[in-house]
């Protein structure tokens, strides 16, 4: 009897979702890409063949060859090493800005959805104001007002993303708070915060996770764009966007300098988008089969 019961327990909601995700080959491929990216970022020091800021003036503007698999840039720095190191910044900015945005946006959304009325109006109108400003423009102006740097880059991107999460969470809270098990929780004397965090949030994780994976792609793109504009990460720290930006002037003669960082961005965004799509399908129990 025992093993049967234990096996059953592993399949809860998340177990089922994982099974469905496993069946989706595209999503598993995307997951592999993301895991490789994370692996690169974590072990960048070991994986990169050269230090990212090692300048070699005898080997500038080299196209891909044996010593430099992806070639070198105008200072003779190895592009592969810079891309590997750049993944750190991109993933860091992507993850942390999404986490900040989820926490703040989720909290605002949960509170306005749960309490409704005046609080809801106040918070959501504030979100509407934020939403009225195009996200990129908002991030650019925030990044310009704050000083360039990693933390400020994260803040600039996170603030632009908050309204999206607030709306998603509010909508799911609204649909869940009227269900009977919430009333049942009130009946056993659970406090409001307990109901929000223990009963409501876990029930609306699915849409949040989907929004987060899709949003992370956007955040990485925003980070690259801001760095491209010179408002994000400052040289010599490698970042995909800033690599593109500095290679821009050589695009006619040495196109490999822009191509490879561009491909790195593209693959990551591609992976995150496919994974987000797969998660959306996997987490929707109505598609069970």
């Amino acid at each position, binding site marked *: 009897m025992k093993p049967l019961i234990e096996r059953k327990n592993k399949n809860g909601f998340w177990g089922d979702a994982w099974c469905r995700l496993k069946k989706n080959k595209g999503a598993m491929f995307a997951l592999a890409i993301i895991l490789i990216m994370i692996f690169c970022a974590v072990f960048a020091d070991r994986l990169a063949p050269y230090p990212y800021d090692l300048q070699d003036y005898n080997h500038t503007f080299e196209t891909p060859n044996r010593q430099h698999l992806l070639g070198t840039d105008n200072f003779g720095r190895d592009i592969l090493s810079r891309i590997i190191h750049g993944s750190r910044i991109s993933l860091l900015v992507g993850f942390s800005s999404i986490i900040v945005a989820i926490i703040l946006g989720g909290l605002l959304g949960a509170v306005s959805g749960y309490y409704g009325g005046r609080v809801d109006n106040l918070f959501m109108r504030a979100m509407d104001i934020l939403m009225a400003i195009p996200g990129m423009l908002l991030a650019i102006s925030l990044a310009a007002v704050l000083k360039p740097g990693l933390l400020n880059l994260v803040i600039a991107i996170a603030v632009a993303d908050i309204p999206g999460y607030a709306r998603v969470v509010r909508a799911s809270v609204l649909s869940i708070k009227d*269900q009977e098990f919430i009333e049942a929780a009130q009946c056993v004397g659970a406090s409001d915060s307990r109901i929000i965090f223990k009963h409501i949030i876990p029930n609306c994780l699915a849409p949040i996770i989907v929004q987060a994976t899709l949003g992370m792609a956007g955040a990485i793109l925003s980070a690259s764009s801001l760095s491209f504009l010179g408002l994000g990460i400052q040289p010599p720290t490698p970042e995909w966007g800033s690599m593109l930006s500095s290679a821009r002037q050589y695009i006619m003669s040495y196109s490999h300098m822009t191509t490879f960082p561009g491909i790195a961005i593209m693959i990551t965004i591609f992976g995150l988008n496919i994974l987000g799509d797969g998660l959306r399908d996997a987490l929707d129990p109505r598609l069970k089969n």
Partner: protein
Amino acid sequence: MEKILEIKNLKIEYKSNERTVEAVNNLNLLLNKGESLGIVGETGAGKTTTALGIMGLIPDPPGKIVNGEIIFEGHDILKLSKNKLRAVRGKKISMIFQDPMTSLNPVITVGDQIAESIRIHEKLSRADAVLKAKEMLELVGIPEERYAEYPHQFSGGMKQRVIIAIALSCNPELILADEPTTALDVTIQAQVLDLILKLKREKNTSMILITHDLGVVVEICEKVAIMYAGEIVEYGTTEQIYENTSHPYTRGLFDSIPDIDAKEDRLIPIQGLMPDPADLPKGCSFEPRCRYSTEKCKESNPDTQEIGNGHFVKCYNYIKRGEQ
């Protein structure tokens, strides 16, 4: 006998933009310790609203308790602060819900849902709460190995048992069972009722059982209140209500139950529908459907009168003993 719950002149309204629905009108109830009271009535008679009122859970807006007192163990529940009320819910008064399918949180294991209520009200460590929750599971007849399973792995009857376990986990003084068996099939109904009754006897808990089913009431309850359009039209011991049915509405309810011995082709329903609770008639709310109605019934709403020892009827022309 010690009083545990007394409701005086309770009036609950739901307000929407233009309409005011009078869900509960001048409701008076008395419940002694260890007793069970059945509240019987049609859908929309205000039974659940009364129960939510006792829990202090009327959604406001749109609901509002306009008037009245709900005295539980000497304190008026309506005057308690939010925190004190929270300490009463689940600990002193707990509720068993109608639909076990939707009353359990789908993403939390059943065991944890029982343990949650214990942890909120009793100063126990996590491990002790888990032990107690397992005990409760066994008590309602579910093996404790199933502690870590999710609600979707349980059948409807088992879910209802889990809900009963949650309701009883803190040894409440009063259980409000809101149609605990409506969503279950007949055999499971009997099991669940037996379980509730057994546990209630063991712990000497008082209970209010809300139901449509007069058969269930006679098995379980000592007292019965018949509700119609937000009012209690007849109230008394189960014996008084069944042996000496006095209100025409109660009579009608009994008549519409098929008799297993008599060969009947058709049931005898009560003609008509319950009045719109947003637009109650001036006189007796049952008058439009009543066989015994008179001009007086149309003009004014009768007061409740005591016609026997603890037997109350809200009717001018109640059916006297032997007249049926």
